[in-house]
């Protein structure tokens, strides 16, 4: 008997193929290396220094001394271990690659669509590129990051991923939106 454990994405079977991308597009990332970093009490500055100085990690603010770390450089299987080594005694690291789903919403109406469910002012002056925060989107708590003038990353708990996509489709009802898995 062979033992292989093919991974299933939380949104497998709920997202159909699309003929073409529309003006606004929601791209679901298939695999993403995600970890939560919790600074050891009293070591927040040290942990932050290490996290933010490395180009290998995208550390998104989650709470004081807590970051949601994404990486395009490290694999889901190795990110947490890599972070643990780098952060040493300054932080606890928990792999969340299976616990979160990452989506990218982009297009000219991206901010307008999000305003149908998010109370934070998403005007580029108030929420500039590079800003990240945990926010309530409709009924769900997500981590929102502005990655471009017209693009946002949404990171959501895995069990809520389907609900979030449903909500986003409703929020975008009056706007042209397509949903697909990311190709990369």
């Amino acid at each position: 008997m062979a033992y292989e454990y093919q991974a299933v994405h939380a949104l497998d079977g709920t997202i159909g193929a699309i003929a073409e991308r529309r003006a606004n597009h929601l791209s679901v990332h298939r695999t993403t290396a995600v970890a939560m970093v919790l600074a050891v009490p009293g070591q927040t500055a040290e942990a932050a220094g290490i996290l933010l100085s490395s180009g290998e990690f995208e550390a998104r603010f989650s709470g004081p001394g807590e970051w949601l770390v994404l990486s395009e450089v490290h694999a889901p299987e190795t990110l947490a271990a890599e972070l643990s080594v780098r952060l040493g005694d300054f932080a606890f690291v928990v792999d969340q690659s299976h616990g979160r789903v990452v989506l990218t919403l982009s297009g000219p109406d991206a901010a307008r669509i999000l305003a149908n469910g998010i109370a934070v002012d998403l005007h580029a002056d108030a929420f500039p590129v590079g800003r990240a925060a945990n926010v309530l989107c409709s009924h769900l708590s997500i981590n929102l990051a502005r990655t471009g003038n017209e693009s946002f990353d949404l990171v959501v708990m895995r069990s809520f991923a389907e609900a979030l996509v449903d909500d986003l489709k409703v929020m975008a009802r009056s706007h042209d939106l397509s949903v697909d898995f990311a190709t990369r």
Partner: protein
Amino acid sequence: MTAYRLASGGLVDRSHGIRFTFDGATLTGHAGDTLASALLANDTLLVGRSFKYHRPRGIVTAGPSEPNGLVTIGSGVRRDPNTRATVAELYDGLEARSQNRWPSLAYDIGAVNNLMSRFLSAGFYYKTFMWPAAFWEKVYEPLIRRAAGLGRTDLPRDPDSYEKSWAHCDLLVVGSGPAGLSAALVAARSGLRVILAEQDFVFGGALLSEAMPIGGEPAYVFARRVVEELQSSPNVTLLPRTTVFGWYDDNVFGAVERVQKGVAVVDATKPVERMWRIVAKHAILATGAEERPLVFGGNDRPGILTASAVSTYANRFGVAAGESVTVFTNGASGYRTARDLAAQGVEIAALIDSRPASGDIAPAGVRLLRGGAIVDTKGRHRVRAVVADRGGFEELIACDAVAMSGGWSPVIHLACQRGGKPVWSEALQAFMAPDVGSGLVMAGAAAGHYLLSECFDDGARKASAVVEAVGRSVSGVEQPVIGEEADPSFTALWHVPGAKSKAFVDFQNDVHTKDLGLAVREGFGHVEHAKRYTTGGMATDQGKLGNINAIGILAGMRGVSPAEVGTTTFRPFYTPVSFGAMAGASIGEHAMPTRRSPLHGWAARNGAVFIDAGLWYRSSWFPKAVEKSWRESVDREVRNVRENAGLCDVSTLGKIEVFGPDAAEFLNRLYCNPVLKLPVGKARYGLMLREDGMVYDDGTVSRLGDEHFFVTTTTAMASGVLSHMEFAAQVLWPDLRVRFLSVSDQWAQMSIAGPKARTILQAVVEDDISNASFPFLAAREVRLKGNLKARLFRISFSGELAYELAVPAGHGEAVADALMRAGASHGICAYGVETLNVLRLEKGHVTHAELDGRVTPDDAGLGRMMGTSKADFIGKRLSTRFGLTAADRMQLVGLKSVEPEKDMRAGAHLLKDGVKPSTINDQGWVSSTCFSPTLGGHIALAFLKSGRERYGEKIVVWDQLRGVETFAEVCDPVFVDPENTKLMA
């Protein structure tokens, strides 16, 4: 004698005819009409019946305060009852129906109430209908209910959709009349983020019905140019058809945009209404002023409108309210309407001014009666004449419309919604907005500036202050050139003495001056008492027209000033808002988010029936094709687990990872049982209390390292426990060095239970999991064959040899499949929460069916777990209170039905045999029941007074609600394997 469309003029598109129906009759209007203006243009004056007396009523206003012109628009599932015709945008095919009449608007049986009106004075119903006692509900109340109410609905499902959105701005301007446009323009030119909300479908407010040119062009042209400039500014958002209905804390405004309420065909991709939550740094209310009706005998007959409405219909819609109009005024406004009518060639029967003298000048050729008043009107379904009185001399003046003006009240509603009380201005004879700080200011007529030039000026001035307050410099202020304007003042006239018939104060609710007199006479003179006793101001217009007159009349009767009477409370909503708009898209299946387990697909493939459990869907049972009932499936699953093995999805449990040097100490304070000395690699049952000593939640605590724990919670309490832990860590003991994180979503977790569990699991797990190396309560990381890291816990809820295996969520389905394959030859089955419930019940394990928030550890038979020697834990101190340790508390017991054919249901109560049911005799209640395939009978868990002393007693399981009484024997709650031999095997 008719109301009619003027030959020219107005902002309607005369090239575009629109067909609509009213009570089945097909009529024609124009684009740009409201339903009200189109009805008037078709000489349809009678549009509704009043609430109490069913009196014939016509349109009174040209705006949102309309008390009479309420109709039902649309049909079938798109029926909107109680729609104000005065704000309803006309569209092709609009179907409107009158309300509150039977059999027809013209012949309404309910009008008999009018003849009986002397018996139906304010509050009459409090004084009668009491005999015989049963008659109120059987006879009187149904009659009253049928007669009352307005529009009709049978509550069909709404086919349309709604949307909600947040918006943020430096300045919100409410109203797009002269002050609003002026304010928005200054703010826009100065670079502010501006939102301009206008309730009408055209921007311009009063400018749309203004006859005076502005800067040499018609006022509406001027308005259109300003709006075009605003529209082209990227920093301005224009919201037409948008009513700002509420002002809430922190300068958040609620507004509703009627996106598709005035369209013939609804575009399903767009909402019909959109609710805006506008977060405004500053707001300017340029909401204008409301013209007051005059309170005179017969003032409610169709054809009697406010003067400004008559002007609006003439100037904006090109409609004359009648061929011969009597104007009755107490100030300048009536003269203005007379001028507007004269300019359009409409005959003015008379201009009656209640003031003996004034500087106002009547248009040439118009008969002016200074110091006069209307004391009665004639006509049935429309006004035919008025009885004018001047110095005791009465005169009948024929006319087919009356324009009345009782002066002006600034629209201050929003400014008073947060507790600020309106302030009486003796000079303006009106209530003004209170000073509520710089976040919200009034401008223009809403601030008591009634001249156009003042409005432009005031809007610009207020906007400039906002520009400076947000740290920018003012630019682009220019004032339009306006001609000479007349003095806008008036002399208050709360009611006309000597009325010959009812003089209405609140049209819709039929409150007239005598009702107010009665209220004062009976001690209900306080403005709130008068409102509640007479129902004045409680109609759909919420007293927008009538309250000020009521206050004036009460003041007169009580001999005090209106300031002393004060107003009733202004509350949201400024105008009524649909449930749909307020609810938005968060309804039905979207009311709450759905959570999916990582094993959902696995369960579905294995044929699970799902059930909602909080936000989750959980697999409930796994029917086989031959099985006819859920009981059959569950019985099979239970037997199979007890004899072979089963696999159950337990991923929905809350899972929290705890780190830090003080992690053990922290958990030791959190759970009532000891945690401090839990060895690494071991799990333990954990019980959490609330500070009041009651059980809060239970779960497991596993130590994965010296400073690393993994704890589980029940599915139901997962989020509550996390908050509770955060409270303990951040508020109670911030000095403890501990960090934790919910990892519920990272792991797919499955329980493998049954005598063959180890054999099956070992086929998949690389590590040795023999009883010796992985004994009961072992907990550690293992490696699965195929090189996948997992966490394995030897814990059991079923009482069988059992494990919980956690793997990264995405791999869950594949691992479950592998286990099912490995277990196939051993007879493994998938089982759901129903079977889990039977298994745990047979073993006497509690869930939140037992732990209902009123149960102590001892009640649940878990008293021995309390770490009484621990220094402290949450709930320790109060758990020793007298009431929590009393001997007669209800304790957890088992029940075995002694009548095998009869089942027991949770929720039944317990009674001693032969004792009369009563609250005092109540012995306890049944918390969980099932049919036990293992024991072959019905069993239950129950709470029974002093239950542990009563094993062996026969007791009545009393379920009167279902008409069932069963005998059961009280026993130990552990029905299966009390020695734990299976568990430890």
